[in-house]
């Protein structure tokens, strides 16, 4: 609830794996991802399309496509294990202790019901409250997420609202039960550029005010620099680098991260809406078994050893990094001294 700051671990994900059967074999969409989020913290997940960011978030919410298989060494929300929890137990937690905001605001609301109805529903499902109280909460939150004449909007249908307003409604909906964790999957990608930053700042502000944990999947590195507590860089189903925003922006250790950041090396200098840099080549196919570094095919520093065995995620301590700055690159110590080769980045 507003202003109540609590500390402590909200989400723990350890060795999360997601596979999908596809006609050509098994697609390893998420390959042993680990991260954690504390109350009042914002974890930003960045990476190109198709790296498994969405499926990671859906796996936490237990909203994966029915054909998908999920395994995890640990998957805990506020200390409660989600991994072994049954369908009913998860449903009691979803929308209550954790909520998700999706990439598609235009289609994420049911066209047949009013905004008010869909907002109230979230509270009525999890709390013993009357419709009147639910309506008051909906009204308060609509106002809070910056929707003008909120009372009138409650009785409108989704098609009467713009994409930006609909995404604000989705944010309000996520907040209805005062969750400990919010997962936001590229919440502004589908929106007009002019309002993208507004929405992201709104999210950051609400996250602070309600002291929630926020997992934000985004392409907007300007925003990452501004609001992230920590960053996880994903590539081909793996986290290839993770650390505090400060560490990632000032001392990126993985060649992939360096490629992504090439246009914006220093936090604060990045302008709003700056796009990720473009790295030559494409994300490799995730179908079938893989060995060695997933990024080897596109890496300017690739060596023979890179392709031979699985690369572990290790600390960058020896290069003066911090304890929780982890990198999945066997050459990161050597590379740290080198200037980024210019052909690595085409912006």
């Amino acid at each position: 609830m507003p202003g109540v700051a609590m500390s402590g671990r909200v989400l723990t994900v350890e060795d999360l794996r997601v596979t999908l059967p596809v006609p050509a074999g098994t697609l390893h969409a998420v390959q042993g991802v680990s991260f954690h989020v504390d109350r009042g913290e914002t974890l930003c997940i960045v990476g190109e399309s198709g790296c498994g960011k969405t499926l990671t978030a859906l796996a936490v919410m237990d909203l994966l496509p029915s054909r998908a298989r999920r395994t995890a060494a640990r998957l805990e929300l506020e200390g409660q294990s989600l991994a072994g929890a049954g369908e009913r137990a998860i449903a009691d937690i979803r929308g209550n202790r954790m909520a998700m905001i999706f990439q598609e605001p235009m289609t994420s609301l049911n066209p047949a019901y009013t905004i008010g109805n869909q907002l109230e529903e979230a509270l009525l499902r999890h709390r013993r409250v009357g419709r009147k109280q639910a309506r008051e909460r909906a009204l308060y939150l609509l106002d809070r997420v910056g929707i003008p004449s909120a009372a009138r909007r409650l009785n409108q249908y989704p098609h009467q609202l713009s994409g930006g307003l609909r995404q604000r409604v989705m944010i309000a909906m996520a907040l209805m039960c005062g969750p400990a964790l919010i997962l936001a999957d590229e919440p502004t990608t589908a929106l007009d550029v002019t309002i993208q930053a507004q929405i992201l700042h709104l999210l950051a502000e609400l996250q602070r005010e309600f002291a929630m944990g926020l997992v934000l999947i985004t392409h907007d590195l300007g925003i990452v620099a501004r609001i992230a507590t920590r960053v996880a860089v994903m590539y081909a189903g793996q986290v290839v680098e993770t650390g505090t925003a400060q560490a990632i922006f000032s001392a990126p250790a993985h060649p992939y991260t360096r490629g992504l950041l090439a246009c914006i090396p220093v936090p604060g200098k990045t302008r709003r809406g700056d796009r990720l840099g473009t790295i030559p080549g494409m994300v490799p196919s995730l179908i079938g078994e893989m060995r060695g570094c997933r990024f080897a095919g596109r890496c300017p520093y690739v060596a023979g050893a890179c392709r031979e065995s699985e690369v572990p995620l290790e600390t960058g301590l020896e290069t003066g990094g911090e304890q929780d700055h982890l990198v999945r690159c066997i050459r990161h110590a050597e590379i740290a001294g080198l200037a980024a080769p210019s052909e690595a980045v085409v912006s």
Partner: protein
Amino acid sequence: MLAFTLKRLGVALLVALTVSLITFSMIYVSGDPAIAIAGEGARAQDIEAIRKFYGFDRPIIEQYFNWLIGALQGDFGRSYTLRQPVAGVIFARLPVTMLLGALAIAFALVLAIPLGVLAAVRPNSLVDRFALTVAVVGQAMPSFWFALTLVLWLGVHWRLLPITGSDRWQNFVMPAIALGYYVTPAIMRLTRAGVLEVLSSDYIRTARAKGLRPMAVLFKHALRNAIIPVVSLSAVQFGFMLGGSIVIETIFQINGLGYLAWESIQRKDLPTMQAIVLTLSVIYVLLTLLGDLLNAFLDPRLRVA
């Protein structure tokens, strides 16, 4: 909603007018009506007298307007053979046909919607295959043949139900099943496809993300949207069935419009045939209109158009 209703009503009126014109011209398509009434080999004077009596000698346009004005006032002329006003006969028979149609569509919906939903919720399951079988059989089998099969087993072999007549409710069971089964496959497949599509939509994911239970997701969020196209299809199918009831009513000798149509065709009773076709067509147009309005009522996005 008002603008929408008026627009649809206007279209419905135009369609009804067109239908009336086509219905009227039935007289001439089937040859010289005077000869038809007088019978083959009648004397020329008699034919001429009949032509004058029924006004077949007037300009066609004049005849049409006279007929239309009469029809609007509920006067469809006199039956050639029954020797009484057509309107009275129609109004006596119409409720029987409407009752049969309503029972048939009710049977179809009660069978098709649950089966379609179950098939969509569990694709490729046993229920799905059963539903597919019901659909294929329903589509492959002509309704008269199905009706005769029912008669053979339920009527003759097991003697569970009366075979002909329309005085008791039992009389309506087999005809309603025969007629309703005919439209079941279309409604069921549309329900299945609709539910399948809706279940994979983003707002269903949102509903699940809220923690709603599977039943709430299915009934509140999925069915509500999947059923919209089914409603208008059902209205249209209801209209089709009124036409299809000619065969079924004749087989079961149900005293409705369909049976009357069959009798009138045999007696070359043109005014009665015209009136039946016009009545059924207007009802069909009204049902389509009703389907549109129900659609708009169920889908907020259509209300503005």
